[in-house]
């Protein structure tokens, strides 16, 4: 196992496909992915995640800016599969090749032994199916084979594009523990997804992009605190409560069901205030940890960039 810690860096990356005013897939994007942590790379479909990953891996040439793996462009790495393991999509297999055959081709291209092929097949739970043609594999099995391919060179960095697609809940739980253990060993793990909830329990950091631009970058726990916490309150004495809250400098809105949406005060403060003024409360619900709502707000087309 290589214990080197290798960070990933994306610096002012811009990629325009086609000539002239082509499709602007990524626009002045910068972020860093640290070793020893699992980083979620999030954004809706078509937001430029895959293009960014392909630039990082030397498959796509940036229009401007650069991407670095441990300080070097991917194309300059001497033993790339021992530094970075990548699983970009489940479709990168010849259907007439067996899983073992596919892995042996990749192993040959990086000078990796045949015994390692057997090891990774066992690691991802495909040992019994290694002799079967990939054409007959389910989506989940292809995901496992992608992962096995990425792990062949025992890399310091693992880059997985939508790895949970096609996995059953058991597989997702297994993947989560596996990625956590890799990060715990000091490896760098970057996982892309278009749904936050899918990786919410796995990641330490998040990089969120929309239309090729960065909208949020940092630790997962900072994602919600950066946004104003919202508390939903129901009361039979709506007007009194509203005046009391506004007097305490909270901002208050009324939602279509007649509940108050309060920002600027947390639930205990609102409860204490209502108690002090003898206002009856029927519901007091803090929405501050609804990350998916935050994520949707950040990435929706009309949502503002943070």
């Amino acid at each position, binding site marked *: 196992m290589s214990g080197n810690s290798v960070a990933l860096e994306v610096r002012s990356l811009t990629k325009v496909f086609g000539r002239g005013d082509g499709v602007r897939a990524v626009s002045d994007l910068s972020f860093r992915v640290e070793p020893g942590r699992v980083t979620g790379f999030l954004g809706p479909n078509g937001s430029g995640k895959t293009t960014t990953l392909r630039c990082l*891996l030397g*498959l796509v040439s940036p229009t401007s800016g650069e991407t670095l793996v441990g300080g070097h462009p991917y194309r300059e790495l001497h033993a*790339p599969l021992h530094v970075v393991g990548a699983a970009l999509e489940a479709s990168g*297999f010849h259907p007439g*090749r067996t899983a073992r055959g596919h892995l042996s081709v*990749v192993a*040959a291209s990086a000078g990796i032994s045949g015994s390692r092929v057997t090891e990774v097949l066992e690691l991802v739970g495909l040992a019994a199916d290694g002799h079967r043609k990939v054409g007959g594999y389910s989506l989940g099995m292809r995901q496992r084979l992608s992962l096995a391919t990425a792990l062949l060179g025992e890399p310091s960095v693992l880059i997985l594009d939508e790895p949970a697609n096609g996995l059953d809940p058991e597989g997702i739980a297994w993947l989560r523990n596996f990625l956590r253990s890799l990060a715990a060993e000091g490896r760098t793990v970057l996982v892309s997804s278009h749904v936050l909830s899918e990786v919410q329990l796995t990641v330490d950091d998040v990089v969120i992009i929309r239309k090729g631009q960065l909208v949020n970058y940092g630790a997962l726990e900072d994602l919600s605190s950066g946004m104003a916490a919202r508390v939903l309150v129901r009361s039979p004495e709506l007007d009194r409560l509203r005046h009391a809250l506004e007097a305490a400098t909270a901002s208050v809105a009324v939602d279509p069901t007649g509940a108050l949406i309060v920002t600027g005060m947390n639930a205990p403060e609102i409860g204490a205030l209502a108690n002090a003024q003898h206002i009856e409360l029927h519901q007091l619900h803090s929405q501050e940890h609804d990350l998916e709502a935050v994520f949707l707000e950040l990435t929706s087309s009309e949502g503002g960039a943070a």
Partner: protein
Amino acid sequence: MNALRAEFRKILTTKLALWLLAFSIAFTALNVVLMVYLVPTSARLVNSGQLLQVPAYVNSIVASCANASVFVLIIGIIGMTGEYRHMTITATFLASPRRAPVMVAKAVAYAVIGAVFGIINFVVSLSLATITLSGKEHAAIVPSESLQTLSGVILGFAIYAILGVAVGSLIRNQVAALIIALVFVFLIQPLLSAFVDWTTAWLPGGALDAVMNLTYRQGEATSGLLSAWAGGLLLIGYAIVLGAIASITTLKRDIT
């Protein structure tokens, strides 16, 4: 070196090469049988009955394995376009991000496979010609001529495989690349040869015939072929030009 081993393993881990080898052998056998049994009885040709007494015709029977070159072209095309069709090109360039050595490894691997196809098909045509001609009155199979055919088949089939890879990296759509190559080999090239005489020698097919010493087609002597040396050099020229164009475009291409 790792890239070369990977290319060989790619070819050997699918059944395509075996199937195409089987088809090529059957095709070569068909060519020999037609030239030994059918062409000499053709009523269309003057003096067809004497063909088996013409030394150049008999040597062309041995050299008729040249026609199996189309299967070598196909294996190159399918091998290269398959990388794009199944997106295995991603894994290929992840393992070897410097693309020029990958293209060289592919060319070398397919040249070797092409040469092996050539040798096997030569052995098939030589032995089948010997067997089917025995008992008939025929001009001798000249060993030195057959040796030239053997060197020609090795060079020619290696080049055809490289041309297949080059075509496949320029036209990445597998079906389109196959159709264009086959239309060229079976329609455009024969039509050009038939109506614009001087093109025969300069087309890849004519160059292959020259280097393989295949001087008879459809029972008639081909006129104006280059010498074997010139034909070989022309084939190498085709491979270098087409290979260079294919490599340059592949080096810059975004793999998405």
